């Protein structure tokens, strides 16, 4: 009787584990499907693609009969894109420039700001921090007009500065980095002060090394978000030669699907690379953003 019950419990556990596994795998299919589709079709030849997409292109009848595997895989689109399309390089370089300058600027601005909030007690600190959180929560659509007015006055519209500068002063990284600085015990800083360390050396020798996790989290989250940045360049950059990848890519006509797919894959590579390298920091960053201030 007892063994029977024991077996029943074990069996139930095993069944639940299997059901969990099936469920998790099932939901993972739609997660990966779009990316797999991009990867698979980017190596299809021009002829194969036009055959595949004919129901859409000619707006005729019949549905796409999707094939994952290609009969004659080719890297032709990538060659054509990398060696035959100079404007792709311009756009790729734009994206890289925008993202790296934003992240660099955020390091210079946000890290000391976060340190000020975490390490010092000054009058108005609470109010100011609340204000920073409020600003972090406002969606871009609300701040679009204010930003436009300033950028217009500074004559910066239609330059990369229009996209970069407001993003540098974003308050989200301040909040994120603050969370990791706030974990440093105050006694440590007090001890350093008594030993005669200046504020700057406390910051660089104690704060930055101990808060590096939060800083990296902010960088990883920032990279993924700004690599995908669309609203700001759409509003502030009229000149298409200044556009980042995220706007250029959808402009490619579906009739040139091969080129568009190759460009999609190349756009994905840096983001996927950062994701793979910084997954741990990404998770930490997300979890930190969820802790109540």
């Amino acid at each position, binding site marked *: 009787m007892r063994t029977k019950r024991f077996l029943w419990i074990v069996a139930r556990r095993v069944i639940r584990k299997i059901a*969990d596994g099936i*469920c*998790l795998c099932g*939901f993972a299919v739609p*997660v*990966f499907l*779009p*990316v797999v*589709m991009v990867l698979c079709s980017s190596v299809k030849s021009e002829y194969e693609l036009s055959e595949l*997409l004919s*129901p*859409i292109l000619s707006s*005729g009848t*019949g*549905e*796409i009969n999707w094939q994952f595997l290609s009969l004659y895989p080719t890297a032709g689109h990538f060659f054509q894109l990398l060696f035959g399309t100079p404007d792709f390089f311009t756009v790729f370089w734009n994206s890289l420039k925008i993202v790296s300058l934003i992240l660099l600027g955020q390091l*210079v601005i*946000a890290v*000391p*700001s976060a340190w*000020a909030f975490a390490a010092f007690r000054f009058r108005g600190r609470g109010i100011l921090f609340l204000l920073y959180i409020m600003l972090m*929560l*406002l969606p*871009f*659509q*609300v*701040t679009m*007009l204010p*930003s*436009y007015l300033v950028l217009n006055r500074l004559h910066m519209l239609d330059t990369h500065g229009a996209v970069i*500068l*407001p993003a*540098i*002063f974003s*308050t989200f990284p301040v909040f994120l980095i603050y969370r990791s600085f706030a974990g440093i015990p105050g006694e440590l800083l007090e001890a350093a002060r008594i030993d005669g360390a200046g*504020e700057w050396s406390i*910051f660089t020798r104690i704060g930055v090394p101990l808060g590096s996790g939060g800083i990296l989290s902010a960088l990883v989250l920032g990279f*993924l978000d700004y690599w*995908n940045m*669309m*609203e700001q360049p*759409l*509003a502030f950059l009229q000149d298409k030669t200044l556009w980042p*990848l995220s706007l*250029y890519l*959808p402009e490619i006509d*579906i009739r040139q699907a091969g080129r568009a797919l190759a460009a*999609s*894959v190349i*756009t994905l590579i840096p983001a*996927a690379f*950062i*994701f793979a390298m910084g*997954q741990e920091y*990404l*998770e930490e960053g997300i*979890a930190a*953003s*969820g*802790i109540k201030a």
Partner: protein
Amino acid sequence: MRAWKKSCRKYRFNCRSRVLFLLPGLIGVSVFVLLPFLDVGKRSFQTAITGEFCGVDNYVTIFHNQAFLLALGNTARFVAVGLPLLLALSLFLACMIDRGIHARWWKAVYLFPMAVPTATVVLIWKLLFHQNGVLNGLINRFGGTAVDWLGSDASFWVLIFSYLWKNTGYTIVLWMAGLHSVPVERKEAARVDGASERQCFFYVVLPELKPMLYTITVLSFLNSFKVFREAYLVAGAYPQQKMYLLQHLFNNWFTNLEMDKMAAAGVCITVVFLVGVIVLQRLWDRKE
């Protein structure tokens, strides 16, 4: 006396160096966000061209504006359907990941869409949801009737799908942080007292997750504004009616330089936003 003076000077220097940490950021935030934002608040009470004071006229105008009401309704509907779906789905998956093995690996799987730039999948979205696209192909094969996903009211579900696809991983990580904060002793005590797995979840774990629910709701709501990226890239500035969100409207107002409406609507949204956040916080603080 001398020593006192010295320490005083040192203290003052310290104070000044402390200010230097915050000042550059504060100046930037003020110049680029705060002051212009106040300026917009002022503009919302002025006419667009002449800048004369016109009271609440702009506010009256937007609430009689067909496009604004449509966009507002759609956004509200999107949030009302999408947010609970996202929260439930990600909690469900988070629980399964949490009690299973390879948690790290599974988290990475579901986080992956965060790393995929919208531009990368736009083409695939078009292939999937086109009238003659892959999804309709599947539906036909299983004997259903094809739906014009981007051209009919079904476009709403394309939005929801995009939102879930992009944000489930993010929310799973947040939920899991919450699940880890539930004390193991409490769960064990409930189990020892004979609570079933389900009872344990509903009566022990779920109440503990309440404070987390507040932040997750706020953050997911914020992320819901980013669904504009998919919507805009797939369907353009004037998509099917059910897909027309406040973000589209702001973008179009911006293109037409309708500053007065933007200012008034911006102020309205900000107020709703702040009130919403404060009310939510109060609500959850009281229940704790």
